């Protein structure tokens, strides 16, 4: 078998050195009644050609996003990733290396993490960032736990603009940890009065901007309201490219900024692996979860990088750790960092401008369709429309015509009474023709009332 170098002669020699009569002697501790004495019910091993054939057939049953006009965001965004990024992350030393616990032979990984942390801190306008979490939703849940530790309170208030699955994750973890999670109703118009929901028992308010519906929210008054009651502001974003065009969480006085980094450097990958971004103020860093790379020197006085403040983590602090997290999202963080380095500040701003322009163009076209309302006044690359017919059916009809039109809100929130809303995203990967085609097709579908 092509991945197993030992042959029969090797095994015989090794058994002899070990002093075992056969290989099963080394499995003698398995209770006899529980030994599998028959082959597993799995097909026989396949050659590369066979594996390729099988998996390619599976892949062909999917509609790749790039093959159709594509306008779906809602927490994961289709952007163009330069060829260099995927090439570099496949270098053996990045792909097949482990966590940098032996820093003398891991300076490649450690320096990249230090650069990544700096980029994330700069992007979010915060003082310090960690070496990444699994994804935006778990980073958000961890931020809430951190706020509880800092304030010694146990109640978090979640904005109605937070991605519904992020709220679900926070509620799941909070429920198990015996914390109180207050979820404000879904808020497509960004009209909620979140300040009124903050009291002396609130540890944090969690507000997303751009929010799930695309609204840009001013977090500064919310931060002030939270701080007045001794609570913290956790600012969330799901579209990292937005930070190339909109005010950062740090500028708006957030205490913890968390979000999804997938947009930069990482493919859609049907939902994972992604990369969680986590940033905060320096004074809070000892309560932060996740790995941290720090600068130091070696015995020759040369600048070096090393994982530090590890005593917060599970392998040392065990039940008193700030989290149970072990892995970060290393390779995805590397991809993020390489892409952001290739973009640079000027490139990121240009990319963000292209995204915003695409969305403005599409929103303008929708505005001209009778019966369609664009609900979002201030947005980046995503906005919400209200349709005269149920949104889920419309999205399916659009799909039948080869257009992925966006997310019907009812898919993530089936009982919220928002069945006529679609969240639409337009990135730099959509063309003017794509956008024109979408608007025209939607208009046709609404005129004909859904008949094909």
């Amino acid at each position, binding site marked *: 078998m092509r991945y197993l170098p030992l042959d029969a002669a090797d095994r015989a020699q090794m058994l002899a050195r070990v002093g075992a009569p056969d290989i099963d002697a080394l499995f003698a501790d398995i209770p006899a009644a529980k030994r599998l004495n028959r082959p597993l019910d799995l097909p026989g091993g396949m050659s590369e050609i066979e594996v390729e054939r099988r998996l390619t057939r599976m892949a062909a049953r999917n509609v790749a996003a790039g093959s159709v006009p594509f306008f779906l965001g809602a927490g994961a965004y289709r952007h163009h990733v330069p060829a260099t990024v995927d090439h570099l992350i496949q270098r053996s030393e990045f792909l097949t290396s482990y966590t940098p616990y032996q820093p003398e032979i891991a300076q490649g990984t450690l320096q990249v993490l230090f650069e990544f942390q700096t980029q994330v801190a700069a992007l979010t306008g915060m003082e310090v960032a960690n070496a990444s979490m699994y994804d935006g939703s778990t980073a958000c849940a961890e931020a809430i736990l951190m706020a509880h530790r800092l304030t010694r309170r146990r109640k978090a208030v979640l904005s109605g603009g937070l991605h519904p699955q992020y709220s679900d994750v926070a509620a799941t973890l909070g429920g198990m940890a015996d914390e109180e999670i207050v979820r404000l109703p879904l808020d497509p118009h960004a009209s909620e009065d979140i300040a009124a929901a903050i009291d002396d028992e609130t540890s944090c308010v969690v507000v997303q901007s751009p929010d799930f519906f695309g609204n840009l929210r001013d977090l500064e008054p919310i931060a002030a309201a939270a701080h007045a009651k001794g609570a913290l502001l956790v600012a969330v974003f799901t579209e990292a490219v937005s930070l190339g065009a909109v005010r950062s969480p740090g500028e708006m006085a957030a205490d913890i900024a968390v979000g999804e980094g997938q947009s930069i450097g990482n493919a859609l990958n049907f939902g994972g692996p992604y990369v969680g971004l986590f940033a905060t103020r320096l004074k809070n860093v*000892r309560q932060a979860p996740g790995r941290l790379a720090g600068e130091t020197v070696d015995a020759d006085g040369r600048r070096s990088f090393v994982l*530090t403040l*590890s*005593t917060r983590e599970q392998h*040392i*602090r065990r039940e*008193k750790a700030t989290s149970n997290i072990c892995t970060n999202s290393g390779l995805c963080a590397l991809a993020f960092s390489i892409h952001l380095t290739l973009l640079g500040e000027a490139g990121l701003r240009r990319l963000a401008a292209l995204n915003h322009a695409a969305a403005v163009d599409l929103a303008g076209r929708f505005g001209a369709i009778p019966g369609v309302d664009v609900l979002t006044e201030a947005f980046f690359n995503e906005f919400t429309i209200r349709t005269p017919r149920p949104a889920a059916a419309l999205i399916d009809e659009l799909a039948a015509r080869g257009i992925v039109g966006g997310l019907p809100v009812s898919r993530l929130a089936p009982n919220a009474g928002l069945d006529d809303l679609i969240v639409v995203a337009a990135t730099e990967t959509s063309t003017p023709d794509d956008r024109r085609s979408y608007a025209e097709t939607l208009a046709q579908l609404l005129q004909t009332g859904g008949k094909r």
Partner: protein
Amino acid sequence: MTETRYTKDHEYARVEGDVAVVGISDHAQQQLGDVVFVELPAVGVKLAKGDGAAVVESVKAASDVFAPVSGEVIEVNGAVDAQPGLINEDAMGRGWLLKIKLADAGELASLMSEADYAAFLKTLA
């Protein structure tokens, strides 16, 4: 009269009148390695003997420091906050952690004397 008593977890209590100066022993500091951070309790906190009083962190380990005696915390050592290395340099002296006003001087009897602690250390080697 100043006497120093020790616990099996390597905390010491140096009694000065009705106050115990608490820290970790020189042996403990050696085991821990370079101290990088200390978490001290707030002044006014009331501790029972055996309660977690402080945490001393080195690069590779975090050690809980348990109160060797019961009482109220009347002072903490701000110097180790700024310079955690003091614990390595002078654990028994300038590297003290907190001062407890003794609630029950009788508790001292169950702690080890200097000589007993030295003998105890030999058994660990």
